[in-house]
């Protein structure tokens, strides 16, 4: 079952900016899907069209097989949205915001109150339920937007940069929460983010959008293996005055006792350690260089070349 299907979606804003060009995208039920792309790529525009906040120029949107134009009620009920920007009524309380949202979806008050309590507790906002939304911190507001988006128990949850401006600890707990509702409640999740580490951690499938076009759409794993090389950071036991020569691996010093090494797909770590030992270098610890995705991302966009990128 497709949780979301976009067909030939186009959007040209009244200002003449072409934000989406023939976007085709399918997200399967149960997926945890990442939509990545640089600023202004068209991510929020696509999400805006899916959630009926932006009118499309042409194309089709279907949520769980329901066309957004012809089966409004079913399509919209299946969808929950966490927008990029805060859009609360400043004067309403946390509880009012969540309960009103439930009401707009036609959920009876008794059920709404129960769910409101569940999600506010799970997101650590229960104590704040009587606080006006304007008095919340940025991180609390982000979580409130998630609670609000879940109160009608959508089968598809779309989050537009949910962790922007959120501290590391909170970000991790939000990841946990999202993983949990994806796994246990079977909610399909689509998320945009500029933290590629986040996408690498959470998403099973990733699409990259650039300048309104989908330039990549695959599973996270094969995207990463496509990097071809793996970068590691090694801590060594003795100060390195100079780098050993004649190794099959390219080394780069990061500090007196730290090295960065690039290992190709067809090379092995055993061989790396053997060669280092031969050169008298003993490795005390090793770690993955993070942000592999980030590298790939930059490479992909760079490969598209400046002449390929239409400057608006």
């Amino acid at each position, binding site marked *: 079952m497709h949780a979301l299907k976009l067909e030939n979606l186009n959007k040209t804003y009244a200002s003449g900016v072409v934000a989406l060009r023939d976007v085709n995208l399918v997200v399967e039920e149960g997926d945890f899907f990442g939509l990545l792309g640089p600023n202004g790529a068209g991510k929020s525009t696509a999400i805006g069209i899916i959630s009926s906040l932006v009118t499309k120029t042409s194309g089709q949107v279907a949520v769980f097989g329901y066309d957004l134009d012809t089966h409004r009620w079913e399509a919209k009920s299946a969808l929950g949205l966490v927008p990029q920007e805060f859009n609360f009524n400043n004067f309403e309380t946390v509880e009012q915001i969540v309960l009103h949202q439930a009401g*707009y979806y036609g959920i009876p008050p008794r059920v709404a109150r129960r769910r409101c309590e569940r999600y506010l507790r799970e997101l650590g906002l229960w104590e704040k339920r009587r606080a006006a939304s304007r008095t919340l911190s940025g991180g609390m507001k982000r979580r409130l937007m998630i609670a609000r988006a879940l109160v009608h128990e959508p089968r598809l949850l779309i989050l537009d940069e949910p962790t922007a401006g959120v501290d590391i600890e909170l970000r991790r707990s939000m990841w946990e929460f999202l993983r949990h509702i994806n796994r246990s409640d079977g909610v399909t999740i689509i998320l945009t983010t500029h933290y590629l580490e986040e996408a690498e951690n959470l998403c099973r499938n990733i699409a990259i959008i650039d300048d309104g076009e989908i330039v990549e759409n695959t599973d996270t794993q094969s995207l990463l293996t496509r990097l071809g090389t793996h970068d590691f950071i090694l801590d060594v036991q003795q100060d390195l005055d100079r780098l050993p020569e004649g190794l099959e691996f390219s080394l780069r010093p990061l500090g007196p006792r730290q090295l960065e090494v690039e290992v190709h797909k067809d090379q092995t770590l055993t061989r790396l350690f053997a060669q280092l030992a031969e050169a008298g270098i003993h490795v005390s610890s090793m770690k993955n260089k993070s942000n592999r995705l980030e590298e790939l991302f930059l490479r992909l966009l760079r490969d598209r070349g400046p002449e390929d990128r239409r400057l608006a």
Partner: protein
Amino acid sequence: MYWRRTLIALATITHKEIQRFLRIWVQTLLPPAITMALYFIIFGNLIGPRIGPMDGYSYIEFIAPGIIMMAVITNSYSNVVSSFFGAKFQRHIEEILVSPTPNAVILLGYVAGGVSRGLLTGFIVTLVSLFFTRLHIHNLPVTISVVFLTSVLFSLGGFINAVFARKFDDISIVPTFILTPLTYLGGVFYSISLLPEFWRWVSMTNPVLYMVNAFRYGILGASDINIWTAYGLILFFIALLGSFSLYLLHRGTGLRT
């Protein structure tokens, strides 16, 4: 199932709207009570006795229905215009737009909010007027239906204003330059039978005149106009503004980019 959900959505918007104007009652309910009390003191008690009877009623009796109506009109209008514009401005209207709530329900909910405030204000002003004069109600069904329909009509007006408004100034232009003159010239303070023929004729083109007079008929039993004309006119405008509002919502004017 569909109807039940739709009704819950309608009740939610209405409830939220009522909650809003009650929360800020110092800005919404108190000012009309004070302003209208001043009208009664100045025009009714101080100046009224010198003016003498109007259409066979003491001046204060004559103006009371008009003053109540004026409060209903301005409050219905300003409730919807400021609430809906505020929702657009703070963008929480998106909460409703992403939901499956049908456009007609969005409109009805906001209008219900405007009517609630309009009628509550009308009730408060009526209570205030009882300190100054006695009100016998000549025809209760007419009184209630006219005030209700007028409130619906001006709530719709406020809604349309809010849809087109882009900045805060835009929500006071219509009230200042159109609504206030129309109400003041709508026979609140005088009977148009006092006017020269030309001005009487001009006044007859003012829709507010019909509403004020129909309401006055309900209370006093006296009117400058035929009340059926008034009903026809109000219903016509409700149909007109109502369908225009729905059309705007459908197009997403001022709401969707």
